[in-house]
């Protein structure tokens, strides 16, 4: 096999001008070392799946001239005999922080400099090539040691971090290194403390911020264009370089490269892409295998780290208790992430990013190969795939003639041999040695004799790994242990000492010798000062082919040898009590002979049946019959209630429940950041909870938009959301909103004003847009402001107001303010002093969502009474209980039980955790009672639902049995079994 460039191309390459690609003038003499190399006798992997044995690769002026088995070294070439070596195309690190700044000590001094965005987190104008510092020598060397010859440098500061560049990892100036610039705009979804600013502070805030920034990009471009067309009479709009730099992203010409930190964030980013119409690249997290179903159709470039976790600590035995099943599973399964993705047809490129030690990169890739990734796929992820992503596939990615001479020289097969190591890399035709040859191994048995007449005769036995050796010297006078023996340096030099008695001299004999494969040339000093030249020849102990001690280069624990794979069930979420599939939804379910609390017009029915069809309640009544094939449950002696509803929890929100940076943040949405990896969902099911209203925190007078969920344990986050639920927003009053130093408001007075002013601003915003749309649309267009849009929606009654409040005065304030704007406060949450203004609440039409008995944890909570719910109920206020606490949400029936002592009837008490709670979450039409056509969310209790002696036995959501006390027992055993198996595996692999 022989591959040659077309002749004409060869001639071009040979032309003298071809080497002249730099502008730097030469100081002193020119340096022109031979630029023609022939790498011969090598196994050459031209591209994944195409290998030539015993072949030659010719490099001329930094470019591959020819490659093949029948290629001869040109006469002007320097010849490198690479017998036993494998050549691969230079690897591409598709995501690297090499040469990038991670700290910005001058951030304060830079504040306000330049025509930039109001928020310092937008550094979109930064260019990786401009940012790159070639001083980062250790990192460059480390990357080359793993075979990398090109890296895509990604700026590291801020959220919008700037444009990435593909840079060569060889030598030269930055200008020499740039392969391609402006590849993608980099984004991460968390605020970088290094660059400052106060917003956003949460993951949901970050998503809202990205939306607004991209809308601002549109507006800025339109406003500037309008102004430039006709500036007369218009106020000059800002000229913003940060937004200007985002135009290619907004127009879909430049990809947005988003760094994701878990697979759920990745799915969030995909949704954002669909919403905003972006061209997307993704840096993965390593957990993608947990979301394989959702990623099967992934259509965005994926850059995958191989940051496999270290084995969790499981000793002493007590310490192992603190290892979660999720952690143990991830330790075991993370190395299968690349293989599983590849098997699912998902393409990806590798990155060394996120590795604590870059030197472990290839070990981990090999580990991935040992756990299911085909070697060709691994190689593709290092070469042709990233080359294509970066748009450098015409010059990089394979060892075909005409491509850049970037070559990885490996001793052995990189993906199959545990101890294969990169020996050298060629970058743009320049050779970088990675691992200097270690020289001959002195282990073995040697016959020693002096060159002169001195008494230095005997047999030297050496063993051990360098640099430390042990051994003996056997002379005519006997055998003696070496008191010192070590080997160091290249060429290797052994140092030996032993007591001289065996040679008939008193004192220590010191010897030193230069080791080659078959011989040691030595010199020594005897105790009496005589100096002796000696020589040793090998008697036995043939060294490895090149003498390199194997132990030195054996892979660490991440090596391919590690890992007898354990067949773990594939569960969602990938943690304790996860399940392999959602519970089935039978066509018909009939629960028989129970005491059924319908919480609807039918009231409580004894010896009654509940009939469910395809997830919905059909009937409650006595003596119902079910079609054949129905799931029939005998609930004699048991009680059945609707699934419990909690109108106020914060469970399952990732990345913070408050965005505290700004006082008014209704543009933020809790629904953007829900997680399925929330053990509380299961625990809450176990306590009969089936729906909840998940709220933004209470740090803002106007906080973010809330979300409704069902406890569909095992469903992806997006599917937890209750379809068709109304939009609701969180307001907050009192201590929590005023305690943030340096942020308006500091008082309840200011709280009223800041809400009022924003309501007013929103009215004016709406009017401005109406005018623009009605008018001729000349001049500067209004800016689209998502915060104002959300406020307009609130003012127009499209979003329910749910206000956190404690004191009566602040509740009265908000009601009166709302009334001025023609609004009704849907519900006050906590409403700790609600009992003091029951009539006023009732007249306004606000509901109250309260605790059973919380008290005295702060000043505004001191006037508490367990009679709060009772008094509100008596005043005609629609009242329910809430938990505001994940644990309490898992036993809301007991919270309702507490009301009995205050004189609330059983029906009213249970209503406060079912139908009233559902109504106060705005979802009373779907859940909260067992009535025809409502969702089949119900609980089978062991006894009276308000008794302390009772527990939930089954919890059904949408007509599926999500919790079953019998299944729970099996799951416990499964959790314990898997933990035990994984811990055994950790012990075995040490």
């Amino acid at each position: 096999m022989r591959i040659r460039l077309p002749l004409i191309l060869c001639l071009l390459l040979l032309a003298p001008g071809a080497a002249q690609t730099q502008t730097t003038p030469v100081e002193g003499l020119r340096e022109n070392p031979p630029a023609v190399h022939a790498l011969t006798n090598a196994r050459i992997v031209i591209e994944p799946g195409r290998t030539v044995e015993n072949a030659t690769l010719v490099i001329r002026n930094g470019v591959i001239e020819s490659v093949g088995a029948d290629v001869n070294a040109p006469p002007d070439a320097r010849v490198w005999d690479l017998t036993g070596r494998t050549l691969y195309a230079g690897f591409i690190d598709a995501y690297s922080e090499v040469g990038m700044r991670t700290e910005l000590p001058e951030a304060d001094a830079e504040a306000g400099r330049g025509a930039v965005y109001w928020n310092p987190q937008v550094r979109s104008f930064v260019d990786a090539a401009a940012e790159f510092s070639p001083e980062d020598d250790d990192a460059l060397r480390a990357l080359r040691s793993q075979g990398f010859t090109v890296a895509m440098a990604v700026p590291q500061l801020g959220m919008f971090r700037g444009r990435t560049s593909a840079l060569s990892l060889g030598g030269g100036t930055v200008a020499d290194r740039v392969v391609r610039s402006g590849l993608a705009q980099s984004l991460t979804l968390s605020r970088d403390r290094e660059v400052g600013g106060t917003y956003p502070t949460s993951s949901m805030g970050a998503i809202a911020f990205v939306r607004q920034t991209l809308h601002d990009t549109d507006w800025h471009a339109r406003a500037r264009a309008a102004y430039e067309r006709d500036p007369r009479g218009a106020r000059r709009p800002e000229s913003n370089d940060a937004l200007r730099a985002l135009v290619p992203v907004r127009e879909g010409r430049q990809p947005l490269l988003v760094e994701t930190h878990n697979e759920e964030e990745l799915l969030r980013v995909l949704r954002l892409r669909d919403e905003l119409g972006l061209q997307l690249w993704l840096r993965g997290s390593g957990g993608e295998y947990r979301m394989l179903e959702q990623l099967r159709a992934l259509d965005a470039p994926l850059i995958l780290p191989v940051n496999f976790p270290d084995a969790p600590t499981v000793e002493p035995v007590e310490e192992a208790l603190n290892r979660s099943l999720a952690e143990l599973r991830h330790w075991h399964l993370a190395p299968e992430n690349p293989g599983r993705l590849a098997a699912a047809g998902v393409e990806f490129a590798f990155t060394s990013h996120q590795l604590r030690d870059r030197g472990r990169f290839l070990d981990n890739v090999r580990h991935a190969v040992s756990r299911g990734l085909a070697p060709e796929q691994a190689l593709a992820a290092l070469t042709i795939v990233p080359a294509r992503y970066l748009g450098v596939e015409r010059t990089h990615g394979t060892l075909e003639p005409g491509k850049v001479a970037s070559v990885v020289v490996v001793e052995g097969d990189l993906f199959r041999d545990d101890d294969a190591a990169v020996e050298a890399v060629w970058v743009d035709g320049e050779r970088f040695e990675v691992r200097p040859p270690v020289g001959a191994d002195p282990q073995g048995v040697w016959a020693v004799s002096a060159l002169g007449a001195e008494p230095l005769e005997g047999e030297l036995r050496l063993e051990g790994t360098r640099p430390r050796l042990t051994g003996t010297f056997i002379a005519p006078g006997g055998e003696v242990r070496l008191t010192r023996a070590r080997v160091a340096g290249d060429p290797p030099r052994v140092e030996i000492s032993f007591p001289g008695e065996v040679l008939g001299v008193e004192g220590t004999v010191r010897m030193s010798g230069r080791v080659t494969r078959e011989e040691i040339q030595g010199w020594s000093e005897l105790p009496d000062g005589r100096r002796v030249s000696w020589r040793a020849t090998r008697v036995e102990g043939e060294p490895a082919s090149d003498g390199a001690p194997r132990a030195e280069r054996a892979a660490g624990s991440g090596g391919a040898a590690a890992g007898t794979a354990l067949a773990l069930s594939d569960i969602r979420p990938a943690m304790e009590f996860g399940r392999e599939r959602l519970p089935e939804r039978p066509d018909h379910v009939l629960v028989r002979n129970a005491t059924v609390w319908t919480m609807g017009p039918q009231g409580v029915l004894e010896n009654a049946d509940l009939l469910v069809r395809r997830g919905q309640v059909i009937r409650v009544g006595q003596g119902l019959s079910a079609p054949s094939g129905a799931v029939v449950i005998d609930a004699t002696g048991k009680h059945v209630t609707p699934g419990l509803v909690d109108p106020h929890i914060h469970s399952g929100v990732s990345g913070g429940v408050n965005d505290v940076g700004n006082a008014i943040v209704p543009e933020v949405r809790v629904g953007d950041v829900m997680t399925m990896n929330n053990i509380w969902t299961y625990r809450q099911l176990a306590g009969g909870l089936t729906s909840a209203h998940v709220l933004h925190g209470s740090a803002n007078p106007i906080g973010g938009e809330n979300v409704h969920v069902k406890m569909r344990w095992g469903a992806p986050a997006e599917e937890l959301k209750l379809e068709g639920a109304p939009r609701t927003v969180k307001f907050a009053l009192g201590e929590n909103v005023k305690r943030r130093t340096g942020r308006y408001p500091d008082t309840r007075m200011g709280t009223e004003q800041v809400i009022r002013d924003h309501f007013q601003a929103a009215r004016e915003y709406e009017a401005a847009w109406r005018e623009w749309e009605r008018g001729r649309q000349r001049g500067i267009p209004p800016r689209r402001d998502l915060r104002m849009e959300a406020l307009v929606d609130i003012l127009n009654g499209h979003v329910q107001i749910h206000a956190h409040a404690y004191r009566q005065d602040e509740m009265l304030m908000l009601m009166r303010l709302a009334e001025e704007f023609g609004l009704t406060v849907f519900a006050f949450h906590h409403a700790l002093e609600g009992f003091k203004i029951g009539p006023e609440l009732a007249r306004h039409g606000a509901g109250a969502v309260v605790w059973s008995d919380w008290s005295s944890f702060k000043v505004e909570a001191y006037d508490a009474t367990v009679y709060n719910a009772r008094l509100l109920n008596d005043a005609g206020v629609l009242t329910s209980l809430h938990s505001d606490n994940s644990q309490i949400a898992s036993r809301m029936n007991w919270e309702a039980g507490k009301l009995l002592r205050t004189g609330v009837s059983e029906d009213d008490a249970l209503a406060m955790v079912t139908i009233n709670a559902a109504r106060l979450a705005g979802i009373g039409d779907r859940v909260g009672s067992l009535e025809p056509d409502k969702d089949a969310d119900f609980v089978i209790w062991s006894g009276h639902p308000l008794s302390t002696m009772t527990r939930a036995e089954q919890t059904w959501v949408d007509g599926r049995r999500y919790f079953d006390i019998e299944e729970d027992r099996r799951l416990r055993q499964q959790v314990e079994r898997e933990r035990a198996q994984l811990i055994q595996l950790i012990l075995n692999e040490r």
Partner: protein
Amino acid sequence: MRILNRVRPVPALCAGLLAALMLATAPSLEAQIPAPPQARPVALVGGTIHTVSQGVIERGTLVFEEGRITAVGADVAVPAGAERVDVTGRHIYPGLIDAHSNMGLFEIGGIDQAIDLNELGPFNPNVRAHVAFHPASRHIGVARSSGVLVTVSAPTGGLISGLAAAMMMEGWNWEQMTVAPEVGLMVNWPSPFNQRLYTRGIRQLRDFFAAARAYQVAHAATPGGHATDARLAAMGPVLDRQVPVVVSANELRQIQDAMDWAADEGIRLVILGGRDAGFIADELAQRDVPVLLSSVLTSPNRAWEPYDAAYSLPARLHQAGVRFAIAGGSAAAYANRLPYEAGAAIAFGLPADEALRAVTLRPAQILGIDHRVGSLEPGRDATLMITTGNPLEYSTVVEQVYIAGRQVDMRDAHRQFFERYQEKLRQFSAEEEQVVSP
């Protein structure tokens, strides 16, 4: 099929008079007025008496005089001159004991001035909870209404926090209210999650105990010749095993190490918290180390543990033969939840009588106050409640309590709010009617 016994609150029982008086004269929220000492014998007749120590007596009679129970039984004669109270259809239980609380030392969260829990520095064995007990705390009355009649109030700071005191929930001042001033020395076992700090913390404890021991010896050897060290001097009763050390320890390693340490020091140990106690129930039982469980209505310690890990812990300890009490979460404002903590344990496997014992006699025994409280026997304090049913059940109403024979005013702060704003409701609905029909 309603298992709940809905009994209308009885207007009877002399509280009525006092309440009416207060309603007439006290428009603002007031601390309840402590009752005078018992003036004449009282006989509660006809109720079901749950003695805890001696079983249940149906239609029994319980007599108390001068604050002490004098007779309990099915056929006890009512003494001449005694006030006879008919409690037919009602239940009599001993007062519940909250075995770990910040009652009296905590009023409002977030306000340093209203909290007296953490003294400065790591070693405060000499500070005593009872002398700082706020007798007019709002939380006292609220807890009483739940049947919690004795609280063990404890400081919480540093490594050695100070001395806990058993307090009765009625009286004009802490002196009257103290059942026993020094029932346990509170120790916070270091956190095992930082090995260096953990080792250092344990070493500090050992050093302090060694110094205390040396101090006792020096004092005994040279009476008056050794300057006083208040901290070390306070350790005498602990080293002499008169006062147990109550070690807060939830993690398995903490419990293990605290047991070894206590054995080494030769002191009496009580484990407080005990979230991981189920893992070494056998060792706790075998070494007879009692446990005050901090909360039943709480989360599993770890994601992989079953959802009911905390709920079922009392049942598991009971099965293993561990001596334990259920103490609740220690917050003064939530002491009223103590019965529900014990009740949850019943739902998850603890026999109902054991659950009752875990909040009455068990804590009394563990803290050495069982000669006063925790059961209904002659000679014990007349600290008891009259209820409509099992006090651990949500639907049960505690109608009247007696503390050391004093008949307690049941109008706690919550009840006073209720009455006050019921009045507002009345006024506003009257107003509305007027508006509607002028």
